[in-house]
């Protein structure tokens, strides 16, 4: 990009980064506004992540990388994680840079809270973006003004730390500085209420779903990855994407594939189980059976979660966690756990390794249409809840 006249754009001391290319997101979005929001976020990410990785944080990664469409359809902002910290990019096309507007979701949802918030001005026409400054969660909570109409925390530009270098230098010289303020957990959302909300907000005619119901309800719905995904799908008019039976019959949905699900054929193996199964003592896998599989990274190593129907049982399934590499094992203390859709425990819903072990598994009987959420402790990298439907 060149200019015919000297442009004052290039004279200030903010950091400018080149926008690699403007790409329209491939996914569907519920309004032109949310589609544009996705474009801006994707663009900001494409420029900032490589810069961050090359100059300050080689390990920087996108947070919830598989679920960005469902995030952007609901709210502005993209989070990046590095060195155990979270940083939210907040792109805007506004040129005046007089305030940073942070959606409440990034400030008040316990699982979304970040350490840093970056004000990013995107000029699509000229192909650059500018880092206008940053703040921390702690400062945001103390200094920002809450706008109830938009549910945003707005920080006046005079309170923004304009020089992005302050972030890196403070990290280095004063790592003990408090970055986050406390936030309260939201009340749990019972299944019936969640279903009502999904029905109501899943209607794409509701243009501003995040402002439609009280924040506590909206926040609890959004924080649950499986429900947020369902909300996104409903708003795009998509049919059920998470039915395990359907995946077996007609292939895994595109959305689930993006999140890492695939199908594979199990090789027959010898029964290892001296241990008693926590639940059903019934059938073992048949030889050459098909299984659903999802790759996971836990504590830096690769594992996979297998989901397969139990032989002879109409509606009984086995969830199994195992390492990918033959020499890898599951350390003592790890747990594989199943929960109901609204995150309630049930009898025999988990398996914990009492010693180093080759696999963890839970077998469970399900009602038709029932949803299950799986989790592993310690949490897999970039873990987001998913609802598998049976």
């Amino acid at each position, binding site marked *: 990009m060149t200019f015919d006249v000297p442009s*004052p754009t290039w004279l200030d001391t903010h950091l*400018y980064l080149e926008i690699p290319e403007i790409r329209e997101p491939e996914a569907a979005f519920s309004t032109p506004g949310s589609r*544009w929001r996705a474009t801006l976020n994707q663009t900001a990410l494409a420029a900032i992540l490589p810069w961050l990785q090359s100059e300050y944080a080689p390990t920087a990664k996108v947070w919830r990388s598989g679920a960005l469409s469902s995030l952007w359809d609901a709210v502005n902002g993209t989070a990046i994680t590095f060195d155990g910290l979270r940083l939210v990019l907040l792109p805007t096309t*506004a040129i005046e840079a007089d305030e940073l507007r942070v959606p409440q979701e990034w400030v008040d949802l316990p699982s979304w809270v970040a350490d840093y918030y970056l004000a990013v001005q995107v000029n699509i*026409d000229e192909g650059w973006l500018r880092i206008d400054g940053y703040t921390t969660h702690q400062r945001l909570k103390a200094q920002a003004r809450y*706008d109830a109409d938009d549910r945003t925390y707005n920080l006046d530009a005079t309170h923004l730390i304009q020089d992005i*270098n*302050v972030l890196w*230098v403070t990290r280095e010289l004063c790592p003990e500085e408090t970055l986050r303020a406390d936030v309260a957990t939201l009340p749990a959302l019972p299944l019936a209420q969640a279903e009502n909300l999904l029905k109501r907000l899943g209607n794409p005619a509701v243009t501003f779903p995040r402002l439609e119901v009280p924040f506590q309800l909206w926040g609890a719905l959004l924080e649950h990855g499986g429900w947020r995904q369902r909300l996104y799908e409903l708003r795009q008019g998509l049919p059920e994407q998470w039915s395990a039976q359907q995946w077996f019959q007609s292939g895994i949905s595109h959305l689930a594939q993006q999140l890492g699900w695939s199908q594979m054929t199990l090789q027959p193996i010898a029964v290892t189980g001296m241990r008693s199964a926590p639940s059903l003592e019934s059938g073992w896998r048949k030889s050459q059976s098909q299984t659903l599989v999802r790759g996971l990274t836990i504590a830096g190593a690769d594992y996979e979660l297998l989901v397969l129907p139990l032989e002879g049982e109409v509606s009984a399934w086995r969830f199994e966690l195992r390492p990918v590499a033959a020499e890898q094992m599951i350390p003592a203390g790890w747990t594989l756990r199943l929960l109901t859709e609204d995150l309630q425990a049930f009898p025999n819903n988990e398996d914990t390794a009492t010693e180093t072990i080759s696999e963890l598994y839970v077998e469970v009987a399900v009602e038709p249409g029932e949803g299950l959420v799986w989790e592993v402790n310690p949490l897999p990298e970039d873990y987001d809840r998913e609802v598998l439907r049976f």
Partner: protein
Amino acid sequence: MPSRQGLVEIFSTFLQFNADRPGRWIADPRLQRSMQRCLEQSPQTESASFWALYWHKVWQTQEVPSSQLAAAHITAYLQEVCYWVAQRISTNFASQQSVADLFQTAMAKVHRILQGFNPQYSANLKGYAEFVFSNLVKESLRQSQEVDICTDWGLLHKLGKKRLVEALQNAGLSEKEVAAYVLAWKCFQELYTPDATRKTRKLSKPDPATWQAIAKLYNAQRLSQLAAPSPEMPPETLEKWLLTSAKAVRNLLYPKPIVPAADQEMGDLIDNLPNVQQESLLAEAIRQEEATLRQTQQQQLTELLTATIASLEPEAQTLLQAYYGAEQTQQQIAKQLGIQQFHVSRRLTRLRKTLLTTLGQWAKATLHVSPTSDVIEGMSAVLEEWLATHYRHSTLP
């Protein structure tokens, strides 16, 4: 522009423009009285920069109205530096905005200077002001160029809610009207956007179907989002509102002259100020220990930064010289150094990080302060001012 004579004048008069040319100095009698009184209390003759630091201290440590009074004195003091910055940048960048406009824009943000200046590490308020004004004027110029180039519809995508509300209030709309216009703008933004092929700047008027959708959304949302009951609006009205909004935003870029900062209600208060605190501050400022300590620190800082810069690669030194000394644009620098334009920004940021780290370590080790973000942020401003002054040796006449 006639130059100001004497300390009283420097701290109590404001520049008036005749069209785009600097005219005469207008005195504020209250500020005159206040300054005269201070000079009477001072046992020895002090320089203008001494008084600038004194007023900054008053501003920092005292409550209203003393702090307001101090801000007004500093605003008077910074008139010339702001004028020269506006004049220089207007010439360099063939600005559409007049020098008077740029001057007013920058002066309106004089609080940034009051807030950002750190007397602990710098004795040069004027130098710091030059640096901040220069950034403010450039920023204002950049924004007005962008606004001039945009269609009304594009412009509505290039502004934030705060600016819009400010513009509508400035245009004289009532609170209720502002809320309705802002809602109309939100509906517009949600339903009509640029895309990969449709440039923001060239965004054209929405088609009738889109207007229908915007009106439908507005009419549904007004029930829940507007505090005051508001009637249903046809698409034509919303179109009119949005055009009015765009116009109000354009108008906002051409600021009205500022009334000298000491306003009416303040006048009486100033005349009856219990002067005890100010007197003790003055006595303190005149005492030499503090000044000597500061001088030592500032000298250390200069030595440290000079040494650090000398240890940098020659290319890095050239880059700093070109950017801070010659005030070249990054694109000119890129051409000169044979690197890509975006690399200039990244390299400058990296260089500043090196220098800022050095300063932070020095503060931690020498001044025994904990290098929190507040402290490092302050250091960042000190660094910018130092670089600007060091390389430019002041371009002021």
